């Protein structure tokens, strides 16, 4: 029986069956006899999360624009569906052909967050594909992965054959071309991998040998088989010329980000010291307004979406933002299409900007001061002052907003209880500010939400050397905040610290963690990023059974000069720069943003974007 017929018997017994049926507008169905490369693009989370991801949409369209390649989508089934699939022996399938994962030449995963790793293993298993790469001998079912977490993919090396470092548009096509050639020539897997390792940005972990010292730290990482000593990430040199989809697959069910998305730039000029994205996507490069306007128009016409979101790491830093918004508004307003700017900074949020984004529909306001005091904000290089926060809130309140959400991070390096008290004080001052305004709407209260996440030190950031606070320290800090808030106008959101602890382990983990991951998967861990499915107890068992101490990875300070598990990967950021940034944090010294002054991080070697712009 084919999969669609088998599904008939189970789909009405699972939640939201339209997650699993395919057939959405703009999804691409090709004749499999007319393609010689079938690519399964797998997102290791639910349909709703994966379908919201812009990178997947870009690569899906890009690959399908090639004659001879058919790229399909695969998502992780939810627990109820997985249970039914396993009970009825239905393998994990792709949504276009409805054929099992085993039919695919290349199985590609996107690594967006560490807590999705067990889902990768589980999806391979559900697809009937051996989870361990050593059990996959042929060229078929090659497992590849890319995305931000590929900057330290070491905990995944037992499962994934090839990693793609950096931006994927050009690299994917080069890799696929080589694969098609290899398939035609009947090359073996090992031979193909050696050739692939010559493509810039392609990291084949099998070609690197890691030796350890007695204390558990790394002694050496050695390349073999002609692979480069360091694998350098890829970047797109000219964003105006890079491929961008003319349409998106339009889902039936409500997904997380259900709108047209434009990527206005890559990279960020700011250099907040905790932020991995702020470093691994350097150098900052912008698209030009006319290109974005064309893309916005194409997407709205082909999808029927009524909202366009201008995405990037910090959209208000985008040079041509105001002219772009003005041009967009000339046609979006009559069509009742609203504009959303999800990543605004408090220091350059203007009244004019606010009026533009709310011209059709009003959305809520969210800001990220990240820390409660100026001292700590300087230490993390979040160059935002309290006055700027107040000015922004005042603008927002006067514009009729009554809800403000503030994002903070707990456990940042150099943090003290004074900094925590600072968060609460800041929120209280915002509440007071609201009531001091004569313009406020009568009878309407204000709600300030403090959303606190736990700091996770990440590779390629100045804080990569830092230990994470222990679970106990983080819990104490959460309790402190809970008790420090006296006002009903202030709401506190926080998460379980165990997830952040594991995130820290895997973010900075080495190859030895692969066996812990495998064990956790065997014990049934999956959807670890979902509070209702996270099983910390099983994870602890997995670590214990492997004889590995997780605190070695999460809570240990790494001395300058130690070899990192990711030391053979080159993200264009020099170690010297990261060390100097780390030291500046301890002196509460800020570093100016890339537009003001080059701080010699290393990315300027590419001579692109902000690095060569006039200052």
């Amino acid at each position, binding site marked *: 029986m084919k999969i669609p017929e088998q599904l008939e018997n189970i789909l009405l017994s699972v939640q939201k*069956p*339209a997650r699993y049926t395919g057939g959405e507008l703009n999804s691409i169905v090709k004749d499999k006899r007319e393609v010689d490369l079938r690519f399964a693009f797998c997102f290791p989370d639910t349909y709703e999360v994966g379908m919201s991801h812009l990178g997947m949409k870009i690569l899906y369209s890009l690959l399908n624009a090639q004659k001879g390649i058919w790229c399909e989508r695969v998502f992780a089934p939810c627990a109820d569906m997985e249970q039914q699939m396993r009970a009825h022996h239905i393998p994990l399938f792709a949504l276009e052909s409805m054929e099992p994962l085993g039919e695919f030449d290349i199985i590609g995963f996107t690594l967006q967050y560490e807590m999705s790793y067990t889902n990768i293993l589980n999806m391979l298993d559900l697809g009937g594909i051996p989870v361990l790469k050593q059990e996959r001998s042929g060229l078929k079912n090659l497992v590849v992965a890319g995305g931000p977490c590929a900057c330290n993919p070491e905990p995944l090396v037992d499962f994934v054959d090839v990693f793609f470092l950096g931006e994927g548009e050009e690299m994917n096509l080069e890799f696929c071309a080589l694969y098609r050639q290899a398939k035609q020539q009947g090359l073996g897997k090992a031979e193909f991998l050696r050739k692939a390792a010559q493509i810039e940005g392609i990291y084949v972990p099998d070609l690197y040998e890691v030796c350890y010292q007695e204390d558990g730290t790394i002694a050496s990482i050695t390349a073999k088989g002609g692979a480069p000593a360091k694998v350098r990430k890829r970047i797109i040199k000219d964003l105006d010329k890079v491929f961008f989809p003319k349409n998106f697959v*339009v889902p*039936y069910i409500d997904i997380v980000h259900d709108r047209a998305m434009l990527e206005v730039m890559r990279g960020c000029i700011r250099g907040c010291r905790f932020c991995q994205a702020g470093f691994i996507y350097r150098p900052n490069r912008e698209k030009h307004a006319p290109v974005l306007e064309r893309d916005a128009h194409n997407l709205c016409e082909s999808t*029927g979406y*009524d909202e366009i979101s201008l995405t990037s790491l910090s959209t208000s830093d985008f040079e041509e933002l105001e002219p772009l918004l003005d041009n967009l508004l000339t046609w979006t307003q009559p069509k009742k299409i609203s504009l959303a700017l999800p990543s605004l900074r408090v220091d350059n949020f203007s009244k004019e900007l606010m009026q533009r984004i709310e011209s059709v529909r009003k959305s809520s306001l969210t800001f990220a001061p990240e820390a409660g005091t100026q001292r700590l904000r300087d230490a993390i290089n979040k160059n935002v002052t309290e006055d700027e926060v107040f000015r922004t809130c005042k603008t927002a309140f006067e514009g009729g907003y009554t809800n403000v959400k503030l994002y903070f991070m707990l456990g940042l390096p150099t943090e003290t209880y004074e900094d925590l008290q600072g968060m609460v004080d800041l929120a209280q001052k915002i509440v007071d500010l609201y009531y001091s305004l004569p313009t406020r709407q009568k009878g309407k209260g204000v709600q300030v939400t403090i959303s606190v996440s736990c700091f996770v030190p990440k590779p390629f950031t100045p804080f990569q050397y830092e230990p994470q606070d222990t679970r106990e320290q983080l819990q104490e800090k959460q309790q402190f905040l809970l008790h420090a808030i006296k006002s009903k106008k202030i709401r506190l959101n926080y998460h379980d610290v165990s997830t952040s602890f594991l995130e820290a382990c895997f973010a900075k983990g080495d190859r030895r963690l692969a066996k812990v991951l495998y064990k956790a998967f065997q014990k049934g861990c999956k959807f670890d990023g979902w509070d209702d499915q996270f099983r910390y107890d099983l994870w602890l068992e997995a670590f214990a059974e492997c004889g590995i101490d997780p605190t070695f990875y999460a809570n240990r300070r790494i001395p300058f000069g130690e070899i990192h598990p990711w030391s053979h990967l080159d993200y264009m950021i020099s170690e010297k720069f990261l060390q100097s940034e780390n030291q500046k944090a301890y002196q509460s010294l800020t570093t100016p943003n890339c537009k003001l002054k080059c701080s010699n991080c290393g990315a300027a070697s590419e001579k692109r974007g902000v690095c060569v712009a006039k200052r």
Partner: protein
Amino acid sequence: MQNVRIFYEKTGRAKYISHLDINRCFQRAIRRANLPIWYTEGFSPHPYITFALPLPLGFESVCECLDMRLVEEWPYEKIKEALNAVLPEGLHVTQAAQPQNKPQAIVRALYQITLTGDSAAILHALDSLLCQERILVMKKTKKGLQEMDIKPHIVECTYQECGQGVQMMLKLPAGVNENINPSLLLNLLKEQYHLQQMHISVLKLAVLDEKGQKFS
């Protein structure tokens, strides 16, 4: 302002799209088709469309119906073609026309039900179930689950063996005042006669008014 009634089919895997999602799906199709639709006013303007009756998840239908308003007059044939050019797989407009009656005029619906499985057992079960004096099911009402005898509500029910099972034509009350979902009867059949392996597929064939005429 032009009032438009759209009749459409929802077949194949589109049957797994929920009613709420169909609403959004049509709003987007209307935008893609550039229909000059009337938007609701107020805080969050959206294209104004109303559905005559929700279709339960998993049912196919050839008689779904929605109403909308256009701020500019368009020929009905053009509306139909414009929508069909942009609708996803499984959704197809069969007619666009001026509404003749209010949606409240719908009082019954006709379903074609295919029961796949051991046809002898299914036929026997149906014979036995339908000659019961009372057919008691649990129906969700505003007051919660309530027991109800649906036998007096069955307007018409015929069935015969066909292919790998039984095909049944079932006419039941449908509409704003009284609505009976055929699943009530079908699930009871399945449970009471232990027909766990039986596969049920439901196709809504027509919505009818008081006189038994097709709603228009």
